[in-house]
């Protein structure tokens, strides 16, 4: 069974490629991501168009790498904000226990079994922050699972002897929680964040599939897939490219997550 290091390396390579492409798209994309060229409709992948063109003659490769920036940005900001909120909730409900723990957990249960499409719709209509409304929506759907993980980690450390020791030192609960217990959850948090990133990308793709994700004209992988489904019979490559980009990114992230988990836990 490959040990953590090898997996970590594979993961870094794959994610590196995607990040490289995303950074490349900042300066140069073979074609403008939204330039429609009537004459070049649904061309097969060729040297001119690495991944071919869609039904409106737009270069799929340029759109994929241009879109990757936003998809990754959405994923990062979702997981970032979600980690902050979930850590606070998880630490409090894990450490304090009793009534606040019960309340937080009941709310968490409620949100987690709430269909995410309804949450997304609610958020998208209430606040229109442009590209980032979807971040808020995804964040709400992700907080439950993150909180549960942080809570279990906190519970595990809450009864550790060094916490008892610190309490005997007279160290305040808050300081024990933030300075001592929280850093110990980092390895677990790290691999959860990486797995969370891949789930965020999947969720953003699903949301934009329903028209709620990143808004046009900025291409997002999910919407490219949806549009590609219409022309899958004559131009199947239109679906393949964004699909591969998603799969490669998520395989990369999962490998990093697995690798980290093996090396640190």
């Amino acid at each position: 069974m490959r040990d953590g290091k090898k997996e970590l390396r594979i993961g870094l390579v794959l994610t590196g490629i995607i990040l490289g492409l995303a950074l490349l798209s900042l300066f140069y994309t073979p074609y403008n991501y939204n330039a429609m060229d009537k004459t070049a409709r649904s061309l097969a992948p060729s040297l001119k168009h690495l991944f071919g063109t869609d039904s409106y003659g737009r270069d799929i490769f340029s759109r994929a790498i241009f879109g990757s920036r936003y998809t990754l940005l959405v994923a990062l900001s979702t997981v970032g904000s979600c980690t902050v909120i979930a850590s606070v909730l998880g630490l409090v409900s894990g450490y304090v226990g009793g009534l606040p723990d019960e309340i937080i957990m009941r709310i968490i249960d409620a949100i987690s079994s709430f269909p995410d499409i309804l949450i997304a719709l609610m958020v998208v209509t209430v606040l229109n922050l442009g590209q980032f409304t979807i971040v808020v929506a995804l964040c709400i759907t992700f907080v439950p699972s993150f909180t549960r993980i942080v809570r279990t980690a906190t519970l595990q450390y809450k009864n550790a002897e060094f916490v008892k020791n610190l309490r005997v030192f007279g160290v305040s609960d808050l300081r024990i929680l933030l300075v001592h217990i929280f850093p110990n959850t980092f390895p677990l948090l790290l691999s959860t964040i990486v797995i969370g990133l891949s789930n965020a990308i999947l969720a953003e793709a699903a949301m934009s599939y329903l028209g709620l994700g990143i808004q046009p004209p900025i291409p997002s992988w999910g919407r490219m897939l949806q549009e590609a489904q219409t022309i899958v019979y004559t131009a199947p490559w239109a679906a393949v490219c964004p699909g591969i980009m998603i799969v490669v990114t998520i395989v990369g992230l999962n490998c990093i997550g697995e690798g980290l988990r093996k090396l640190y836990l």
Partner: protein
Amino acid sequence: MKYFLRKTLILVLTVFLISVLTFIAFHIIPGDPAGLILGTNATEEQLEALREQLGTNRPLSEQYTSWISGFVKGDFGTSIRYRMPVSELLKGRLPVTLALGLISLVIILLFGIPLGILAARKRGTWVESVIHFLTILGISVPNFFLCILLMWIFGMVLHFFTPGEYISYTKNLPGFFRSLFWPALSIAIPQTAILTKYIRTAMLEELDEDYVRTARGKGAGETWILYLHVLKNAIVAVVPLIGMIVASVLSGSIIIEQVYGIPGMGKLLIGAVTSRDFPLTQTLVIYITVLIVITNFLVDIAIQLIDPRIRLGGKS
């Protein structure tokens, strides 16, 4: 017995919390059901008449209280969009989603568990690396991309099935299951990968436990240990995750039903939400949540049955 009492109390509490959340959601999302039915050309009088008829001109809180009182008595109200009792609508839909869920669950368990065991048994060999790679791949593929692939390859090219064709169970049962098989597969593949991964990790962790060392000391072979000792402990470790897998199967079915055009509760939910059909959405959300919470309930009971430490409590 006290344990179940507490669990049912939590069930009711969670479901109530969900219905309040749905109420708030509908409070916030704009949209007038009557307008959506009559379209842009309707005159004001027509809209007023329809709102009166549907009862959507009453304040939302009143609609909610009337719906709740009805719900408690078992009457789920009439759907605004389809103008027929919600319970009748669900009668046709629940079996479809349940069947879809069941088939995908069967696939998940039928493939997930043996693959997980095989990966654990053949740890260190190429078999485990292949399975490991497949699981990572399985987890990474978005399920609607999977749908497109399945529909294109197996539907169009190989003609294994006719995408978009749904045979109702009232007409012919085998046809019904056949038309549900492929959507179930697209839900099942990512979840199977997850289950395989969890079972493999659980079994590897159990293999490091002391009781395995004791068993080896007795002269038990690897396979004997794997099936008689480790498997049972791994199952106990994995059972709680089954609850999570069922939850994602249910939420996954919402999009899959939309893509394959399967008339299940998921497709109905999307329709209900976009057409602001408050009673129908409320009931559907409750149904789906109750399904999820009941699964967790069953999972808890399953754990009780398998794990004597919980069933029999502390030292005698």
